[in-house]
């Protein structure tokens, strides 16, 4: 708790003046904080009648509102609106003030065209409509006149009729498919409408027939693949995905579909195993960190995280081992390190973190390497509350001096700050830093000894 408070204090006070940024060390924030204090200090005066908050503050009517009322009905309140009269009186007064019938925009004039324009009849109405032919005059014209309609530019009649979809529904029910398809082929707008309509209605078979007829093979494949989203049962979904592999996707997408199938296949195996492990209660890891959700249908990176968390040390031969996943799905190094790092840091397995970032060259020398940049490493470790000793080892490796100083100061890696100022031969900053370390600490000692080192040629 105290640590949090101290952090917060520093958050607000460690500000230098700079142009506005959305970074956390910013001057503007102290202004905000101060405004908040001012406003809060006035709260005692204001808070005496908190109940009328809505009434006083907002012109919206939260209590009499429709959304509110629907929530009430949904929550099982069986009383009808009459029962809530008292609370609604407020709102009704506003209505009384409104012109009812005698408004200058008379209702009769408004609804003059209502029947003519009434755009929405039920679908059955639309179909039994005897005048249906008049909705599609362009279809009765000779071919030569089709020119206008075959482009995407649709004249008003089509637009208006298409908006209702009546033409298409009618034609769809009455014409033989081949004829309908052929007619639509030259009418792009109508075609789009029918495809959209079929999607909305979920008429998958009809849709696929149409797309096949149009020779849109990729769309056929995608439409079929899309169906997997509706399959809840994982075994069935896996089977379905297997069938998708042979669909006419582009080469690139075929490999994605293949990966999707393989991933789900693996997840099913891992899930069965781990559920068993967890239930048996034998594994300390599962006991200590019970699984929050099943791994089924999760993305690959999430699966990799999971496997780095629960199955890190497994041999490559196991489906659940991180290295197996990395190989199978050709996960790039960068992605792998990022994910493994996050997982191991979450477990506070600092040894694993170290190993992950250590490489050996052919002579056997070890070297620290991070494909994601050490500033990211630091950020991930810090988010997982790594101790300063661990953190500072990686802060030291941040290449850019400014970033390094920034991170070191932010996370109180005193040694790194001191050494960096020494290397920069910046006596002024180093001297100033004395105030930031504890009095009588080893760090203070270190600063003193550096400052009194006669061999350093200070730049200032």
């Amino acid at each position, binding site marked *: 708790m105290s640590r949090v408070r101290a952090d917060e204090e520093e958050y607000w006070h460690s500000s230098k003046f700079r142009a506005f940024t959305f*970074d956390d060390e910013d001057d503007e924030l102290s*202004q905000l904080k101060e405004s908040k204090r001012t406003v809060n200090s006035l709260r005692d005066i*204001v808070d005496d009648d908190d109940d009328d908050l809505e009434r006083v503050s*907002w012109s919206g009517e939260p209590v009499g509102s429709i959304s509110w009322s629907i929530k009430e009905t949904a929550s099982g309140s069986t009383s009808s609106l009459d029962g809530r009269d008292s609370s609604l009186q407020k709102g009704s007064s506003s209505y009384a003030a409104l012109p009812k019938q005698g408004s200058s925009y008379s209702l009769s004039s408004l609804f003059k*065209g209502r029947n003519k324009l009434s*755009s929405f009849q039920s679908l059955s109405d639309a179909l039994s409509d005897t005048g249906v032919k008049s909705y599609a005059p362009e279809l009765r014209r000779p071919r030569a006149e089709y020119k206008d309609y075959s482009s995407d530019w649709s004249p008003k009649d089509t637009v208006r009729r298409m908006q209702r979809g009546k033409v298409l529904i009618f034609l769809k029910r009455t014409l033989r498919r081949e004829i309908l398809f052929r007619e639509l082929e030259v009418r792009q707008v109508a075609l789009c409408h029918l495809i959209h309509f079929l999607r909305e209605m979920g008429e998958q078979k009809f849709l696929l027939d149409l797309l096949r007829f149009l020779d849109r093979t990729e769309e056929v494949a995608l439409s079929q693949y899309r169906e997997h989203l509706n399959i809840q049962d994982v075994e069935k979904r896996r089977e379905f995905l297997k069938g998708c592999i042979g669909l006419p996707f582009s080469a690139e997408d075929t490999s994605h579909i293949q990966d999707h199938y393989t991933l789900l296949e693996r997840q099913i195996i891992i899930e069965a195993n781990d559920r068993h492990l967890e239930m048996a209660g034998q594994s300390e890891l599962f006991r200590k960190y019970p699984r929050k959700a099943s791994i089924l249908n999760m993305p690959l990176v999430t699966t990799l995280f999971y496997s780095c968390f629960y199955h890190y040390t497994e041999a490559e031969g196991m489906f659940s081992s991180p290295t197996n996943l990395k190989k199978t799905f050709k996960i790039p190094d960068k992605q792998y390190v*990022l994910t493994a790092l996050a997982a191991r840091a979450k477990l506070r397995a600092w040894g694993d973190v170290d190993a992950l970032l250590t490489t050996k060259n052919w002579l056997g020398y070890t070297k620290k390497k991070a494909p994601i940049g050490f500033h990211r490493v630091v950020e991930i470790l810090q988010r997982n509350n790594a101790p300063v000793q661990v953190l500072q080892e990686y802060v030291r490796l941040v290449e850019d001096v400014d970033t390094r100083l920034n991170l070191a100061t932010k996370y109180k890696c005193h040694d790194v700050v001191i050494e960096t100022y020494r290397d920069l031969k910046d006596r002024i900053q180093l001297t100033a830093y004395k105030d930031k370390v504890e009095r009588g600490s080893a760090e203070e000692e270190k600063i003193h000894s550096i400052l009194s080192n006669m061999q350093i040629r200070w730049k200032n």
Partner: protein
Amino acid sequence: MAFAGRRDAPEPPDFGILKRLARDQLVYLLEQLPGKKDLFIEADLMSPLDRIANVSILKQHDVDKLYKVETRPAPGASDQFCFLVRPRVRTMRFIADVTCDEWSFYLLPLDEDIISMELPEFFRDYFLEGDHRWINPVARALQLLNSLYGPFGKTYGIGRCAKMSYELWRDLEDESESEVQGRKPEIGHVFLMDRDMDYVTALCSQVVYEGLVDDTFRIKCGSVDFGPDVTSSDKSIKVLLNSQDKVFSEIRNEHFSSVFGFLSQKSRNLQAQYDRRRGMDIKQMKDFVSQELKGLKQEHRLLSLHIGACESIMKKKTKQDFQETIKAEHSLLEGFDIRESTSFIEEHIDRQVSPIESLRLMCLLSITENGLVPKDYRSLKTQYLQSYGPEHLLTFHNLKRIGLLTEQSAGDTLTAVESKVSKLVTDRAAGKITDAFNSLARKSNFRAISKKLGLIPRLDGEYDLKMPRDMAYVFGGAYVPLSCKIIEQVLERRGWQGLEEVVRLLNGNEFCVSDSAVEDNPACESQRVILAVFLGGCTFSEIAALRFLGKERGCKFIFLTTAITNSARMMEAMIEAKG
């Protein structure tokens, strides 16, 4: 519109009429069904309905209970049901056998200068599916506005949907007998624009206050739910955000950095006002309580809410590396360090920061660069599928189709595509025509347009965000929103002359029509009121930019949009829903 000399912007017309009209018609419809009835409302319509009516109005017209469309009526309920739904196949199928009437509720005034059609699905239906079903409501909305606030003098527009809507509207006007000529207009000109003329602006992170609030908390139908982290209590508060909110109205259009100073000034003033009580005698105190206290209390509540909102925004944005993201965005807009931005996006994906955000950045990269280099496209796509799930294969297909995220093909110049299209129009292979049109839509030509219109301000020294000098302030001084720049240019030139190259790069479909019957009198106030119509959605940043332009040029912009949008809503519309 005369830009010469600074004049005060005219007042906007009263759009309260629109609410009253919708309410009257709803009442009329309810009266068509005499006796007790239960009302079923589609979820999407609940918030808009709330803005024009309330429970007591419904009750006065014998509505007994209210339900969401999905829920089933309780047994023993009224024997009459009334459904308020949008004409969607799926909902209609659920309701099955009914008689229908139309409630022509097209226009919801969200504020004194914003009218929304509350049709978020317009974007996907038209631009992705190619479905024209919403063009009719747009045309009828224009007809209604023209009859109430017109006749409009000049109509400008760009985009295919804009053109179709305009023509359908003219046809409706020709058919109707109503006579609007001779009235004194309140709106002078109309500008219609398709969203696909400018995806870039809609994809950028918003940094004006209202935009940030929308990006962070989602403003729905003009109001926002501030959660416990904002209210510093255990409850959420629903707040109406409009010009009536005295604190909000002063900060909504400001760059976020100016907001803090304003709030701090305001809270100090408030404190001073309260402090005056100290020296008061009883009489003065009485006056204070009866006259001022209520107003001060309200101001206090507003202040503490907006301060809370600012804090919450800062906290969230700091966590998300917002500064880094904005830096990457600016590089993309300016077109330098593309490699670096690409690796930033790659890392964003690898770290699973947010599926929507990653997608947004990829689209921004694609659209500013006229498509991704094939190698990058493949690798980013693969990594995205690995990080966020393989089913996003479908999302990528959608984005390609709509032209938001595409792959460059070798030697694919605009002229080549154009000749391909003209050749294919006569070709009967329909699939190929679509492909050709799609690849045409794909070309954003952003870089060339940006250069032509000077969208990236040249900077000498720091851009003073507190004293903005142009519309670029809505993006921290880094970029003038393309959509707004087009509107500015066309209004200034009173047409498209001199913008031929820009129009060509935008794929044409521009128009400019004057109503000869309307007197072109620049002295008339209404000549300086412009209705800006956004087909496919408009962002709060664009609204702020045009409000700024209006103030500069002494004119007033009224916004009519199919819905308020932002980058996240656009991306979500492209994602294939599960199930």
